[in-house]
């Protein structure tokens, strides 16, 4: 049965940091891939979509423009996973409002990890926990900046599966930035290539 496509995140004439304008949209239950050389502005695009940097143009979620939604609410719905995670509290649980044990298990932790001190986490553990931390907010749109860059093969698979399951269960939209064409091929149903300020339809 073919699903009806419903636009979830709609981007009109997005201009940030002097590049653009960009026009595209991401449907519910869709993963859109984005690749491109370093410095082409992929991460900055995700920052603009999460409303962390000033930008021009219109970004709307479910037909409602970002400017009409409170910023905290927007960022909870349109969740950004930065390439590097940052931690402010002493223990892992200081960073969760509502820890989700089933999510923790899906990336290979049990709930005792919540009492671990942040300083003893490896970069891979940090990345997996950052993913759980983000998903615990139940975002409708995920902006993923190289989400598996620090992970080994097994964990890359686990994380890809986790995002795929999350997407299906929550009818979420995913915007996945990656350097790895094979990964984009695995996870995304469409993809773009960003180069010299131009968004080109990519082959996958």
């Amino acid at each position, binding site marked *: 049965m073919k699903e009806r496509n419903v636009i979830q995140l709609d981007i009109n004439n997005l201009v940030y940091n002097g590049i653009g304008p960009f026009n595209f949209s991401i449907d519910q239950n869709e993963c859109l891939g984005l690749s491109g050389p370093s410095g082409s502005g992929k991460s900055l695009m995700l920052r603009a979509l*999460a*409303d*962390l*940097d*000033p930008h021009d143009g219109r970004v709307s979620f479910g037909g409602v423009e970002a*400017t009409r939604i409170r*910023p*905290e*609410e927007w*960022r*909870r719905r349109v*969740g*950004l996973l*930065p390439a*590097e*995670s*940052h*931690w*402010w509290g002493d223990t892992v649980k200081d*960073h969760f409002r509502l820890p989700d044990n089933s999510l923790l298990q899906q990336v290979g932790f049990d709930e005792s990890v919540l009492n671990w001190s942040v300083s003893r986490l490896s970069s891979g553990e940090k990345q997996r926990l950052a993913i759980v*931390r*983000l998903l615990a*907010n139940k975002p409708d749109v995920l902006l993923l900046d190289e989400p598996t860059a620090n992970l080994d093969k097994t964990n890359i698979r686990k994380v890809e599966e986790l995002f795929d399951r999350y997407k299906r269960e929550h009818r979420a939209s995913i915007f996945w930035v990656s350097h790895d064409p094979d990964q984009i091929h695995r996870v995304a149903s469409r993809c773009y290539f960003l180069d010299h300020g131009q968004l080109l339809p990519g082959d996958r």
Partner: protein
Amino acid sequence: MGVISLSPYDLAVAASLLLAVAALSYLLRLGNSGQIVVAGVRMTSQLLLLGIVLKSLFAHTNFLWVTLMALVMLAAAAREVTSRQKRRFKGVWGFGIGAVSMFISSFTVTLIALAVIIQNRPWYLPQYAIPLLGMLLGNTMNGIALGLERLTANAWQQKPVIEARLILGQSWNQAIGDVRKECIRSGMIPIVNSMAAAGLVSLPGMMTGQILAGSPPFEAVKYQILIIFLIAAGTGFGTMSAVYSASRRLFDERQRLRLDRLKGQ
């Protein structure tokens, strides 16, 4: 015991000590001998000028002149706060946050002291109003400058952490909360420490001056206690208000961390 009047010769002896330090600094190539001399000359001429101004201000008790003097002092303090920031706010905010916070804290505390505690007639009697305000501004200025310097430096360094908190749906207020607390505390450290050490380690300057000028020690002590309470209150209010409003200014209406509102190095 009356006041022993100081002659220019007495001051010159004291100044020669500083000159000796400057000469030594020159020999050791510390690179600040010029600064020492300039600061010494500035201090001497500013204070002599102040002496002349105060002399005529005290001679005619005039509200407008007292107000003008107070505003000039405020502007000088705000300029000093601004110039001590490595990454100050661009535009009018750099000067404004310090000036408004010092105005709120120092002027309010001075007013309360004059109207409620000292109760002169008129309440703005310059012999009391100007020195009190000066002590308050001088100390509040230090607290505010320290607090703001820490805030802007920390916001710069901890940008990724603050943004990580915003990304997870925290408000600007939560995202910078920990940083702000630490900055307010550090702005208040000097005054809290100096209260703890007062009388044991150091004889506070004002009291020393009064005693040297011939006041009975116990009167000098009471005034000193009053002043320290006022200074601590003024520094506390001033630092809180400056750091709080500066932290708000670091974010825009969409609660984005806007470090572009600060000047670079």
